[in-house]
């Protein structure tokens, strides 16, 4: 398939006059970035996601994000770990992740996620809040 146009994220909004439409599209793109990032981090293939369909996808995405919330032994760490071991310039991240794994240091893992994957961290945080609210209201 031919690519007919490439736009930077910021430029994409320049032609949108309607403020509500601008907000709507920004929210939509943020949602795609967060969910896409989460699924990628979890090592899920696009094929698997598409095959689940819309309703199931939301369940899968929620489960993925929640599993990442306990990321000490999650796929996020495994994926990053594999990559980080091969890259010298990520040595510090590797050391942080290794330390978090060894010590179950949630605070440091949180800081790592906030710094390296802020979109994902927000998604995780929001999903945890939602889960807690669901639990309280049941």
């Amino acid at each position, binding site marked *: 398939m031919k690519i*007919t146009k490439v736009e930077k994220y910021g430029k994409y909004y320049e032609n949108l006059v309607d403020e509500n439409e601008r907000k709507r599209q920004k929210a939509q793109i943020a949602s795609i970035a967060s*969910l896409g990032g989460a699924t990628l981090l979890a090592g899920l293939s*696009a094929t698997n996601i598409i095959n689940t369909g819309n309703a199931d996808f939301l369940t899968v995405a929620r489960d993925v994000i929640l599993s990442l919330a306990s990321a000490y032994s999650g796929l996020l760490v495994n994926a990053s770990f594999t*990559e980080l071991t091969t890259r010298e310039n990520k040595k510090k991240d590797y050391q942080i992740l290794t330390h978090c794994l060894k010590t179950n240091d949630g605070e440091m893992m949180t800081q790592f996620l906030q710094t390296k994957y802020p979109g*994902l961290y927000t998604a995780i945080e929001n999903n945890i809040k939602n889960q807690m609210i669901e639990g309280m209201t049941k």
Partner: protein
Amino acid sequence: MEDKFILTLEDNNKYLVISKTIYNGITYCYIGKLDDNTQYHFAQIINDNIELITDQNLINELTPLLVDNI
């Protein structure tokens, strides 16, 4: 987010490039369809063409690289 790109394809569908990487001299990316947050694809870009990837072995190799560029 400011460093992200949006691609428009010849069928007029738009995709957010969630992550991209260069592997063995080829540009690979992970894209999400703008008007449907259930559609995500691994793809390769050659010249001005984008092709979806379905080879699971290649996807497994690319995933850690793409993760690091989110």
